[in-house]
């Protein structure tokens, strides 16, 4: 049998890297499965947590933006407005957070076993998707209970979901590489996410903003995701500002490409600094 010959040098291995990632797809699945198992095995609270967290946020946002601030909802129940913003935002922020923390939380793996390092951030997405699906289940219950009709656009939801995941993965990879080298970066992250929740149309509709601000607002890549998401679920209840989804797509492609590039270039030194 002919044995494969590998040469290890100082340069980052570039050839056949993606083939190697593909060969480690079992590992990606197992690491994701581990995260889900660990989260939901430990206690009943584990599962309850996935239900409680979005529900609590939903109540708070609906109360603050709908009741107190009395923002317009285009005739829809305000909880629905919040939920359609919350679902993509939750997915985006969970993936971003999990991916950027993934190297540090798996430090023992990184320093003891070889596999393409990008396996770790990719597998971190698994548990986020799981949480997201639970939230989706909750949302469906709410939709049925309120008797909201869903349009044909709902079939486009998977694409918006993938877009949200990929955009979060792109900047998450950059953050992960950064996080491995600068440990206190993790303290910055929650602040960024907190701010992001208000700078993105999570608790309000984009149409609330004056028209002249729409263009600048659309530069936030999450705006495109949330707007598209609302459109898929609620139909034409809000403005669809074409540049915003375009910004999102360009942003996603760009960060994903750059994130993978940087991550790959830095991965051979992760074991030394982590």
């Amino acid at each position, binding site marked *: 049998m002919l*044995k*494969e*010959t*590998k*040469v*290890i*040098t*100082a*340069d*980052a291995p570039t050839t056949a890297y993606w083939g190697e990632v593909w060969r480690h797809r*079992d*590992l990606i699945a*197992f*690491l994701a499965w*581990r995260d889900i*198992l*660990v989260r939901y*095995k*430990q206690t009943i609270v584990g599962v309850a947590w996935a239900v409680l967290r979005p529900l609590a946020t939903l109540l708070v946002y609906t109360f603050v933006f709908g009741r107190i601030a009395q923002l317009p909802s285009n005739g829809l129940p305000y909880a629905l407005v919040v939920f359609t913003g919350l679902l993509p935002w939750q997915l985006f922020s969970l993936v971003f957070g999990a991916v950027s923390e993934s190297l540090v939380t798996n430090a*023992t*793996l*990184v*320093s*003891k*076993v*070889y*596999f393409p390092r990008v396996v770790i951030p990719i597998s971190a997405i698994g548990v986020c998707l799981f949480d997201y699906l639970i939230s989706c289940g909750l949302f469906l219950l709410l939709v049925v209970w309120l008797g909201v009709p869903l349009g044909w656009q709902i079939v486009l939801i998977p694409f918006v979901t993938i877009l949200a995941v990929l955009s979060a993965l792109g900047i998450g990879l950059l953050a992960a590489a950064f996080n*491995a*080298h*600068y*440990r*206190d*970066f993790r303290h*910055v992250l929650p602040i960024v996410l907190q701010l992001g929740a208000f700078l993105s149309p999570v608790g309000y509709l984009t149409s609330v903003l004056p028209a002249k601000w729409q263009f600048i607002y659309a530069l936030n890549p999450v705006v495109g995701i949330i707007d598209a998401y609302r459109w898929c679920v609620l139909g034409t209840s809000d403005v669809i500002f074409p540049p915003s989804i375009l910004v999102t797509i360009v942003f996603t492609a760009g960060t994903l490409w750059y994130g993978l590039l940087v991550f790959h270039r830095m991965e*051979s*030194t992760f*074991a*030394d*600094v*982590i």
Partner: protein
Amino acid sequence: MTHAVRVERLGKRYAINQGRASATLRETITRGIHSLVKAKTPPVDDAASANGRQDADHVWALKDVSFDVAEGERIGVIGANGAGKSTLLKVLSRVTAPTEGSVEIRGRVASLLEVGTGFHPELSGRENIFLNGTILGMTTAEIRKKFDAIVGFSGVDKFIDTPVKYYSSGMYVRLAFSVAAWLEPDILIVDEVLAVGDMAFQRKCLERMRELTGEGRTILFVSHSMTSINQMCQKALVLKKGRVVAFDPVEDAIVKYRRSADEPGEDLALADRAEIDKLMVRGGSGDVRIRSWRLKGTTADAVPAIAIGGTLECEISYEPVHSEAVGAVLDVGFAIDTLAGTRIYTYVSGWQGHHALVEAHGGTTTIAISDLMLRPGTYLISLSLIHAGTPYDALTHCGAFGVTGPSEAGGISWQPDFGSVRFPISFTDGARP
């Protein structure tokens, strides 16, 4: 023979100042501001000091390491703490990239730098087998096929569905090692993992590793246990401060390692052995010092070889360091250890009423052991000078000698852990009464 691993001029440099490599963002920003402020003052001697710092900031964990491993060889890697053993294994297993040089590896590699990498306490034994197996590079189908063998080997069958956080530490490492034991790579890289479990389990592990090489697998094995290295490996690589000191058949390599272990000098040619003042494994009060010693039959590049039943002669010369020690009565102590460091013989001259009197310019004592009934192999000697129960001088493993003769053959082959003493023995047969 084809090589399985070829290492060429391998080097790995680390930044000593971890504050730079894994700094916090806060520190980096502060440093950045500082250097901005500093930049305004003319950098007079900055260049010079920067050059000096360049070297102080880095350390070569490995430097100019070259060696070849043939297919199916079991190689031990030995060296003191910080000699670069673990770094070498990390580079070979691709956990970290080398700074220079190259490694060529033929075949599938599995590395075991730690027992139970990726084990999660909340998961059951069964789940951890699958997780750990995947991390180590097995496919799911492969794990499923070997599952029973793994569980059987570990002996934790009854608790296989219990979360491993409830395992005793012994059960935990047994399960973890079992997963690795059923990996079937072409090249297995192992770091210190045999230091786990009880004696019986350790023996099982060694057996399993021997079995693996029997199937033509190559093993690289780091251990501090000379017994394990001696039992496991055919050759050993001795590292010291990141450089290769020796790459020889295992017994020779262990001798060189023992000699070099704590010697500050770089080189360890056998001719250097007389420079015993460099030895750091030296105890005693220092009132009287051994100045030189010589085993009869020693040449510049070989340890003396003595036939079984032959005579070992060692001449030591000593002198007092303080004048107060003149006139003291000395006992000369002599001891023999196996390469694994097990003491097999100690004798103090006073036991047969022999004492040496310390003269002002010192003296010599010759020790002769006749009827050296040891089995063939290499042994280490230690010397001491004792006065009134306290040592003046003590040299540990300062020399070595070999014993030659017919080795045990026929039936069961001799193993290093069978013991080294060879008493005259006879067997007489008779009929049952």
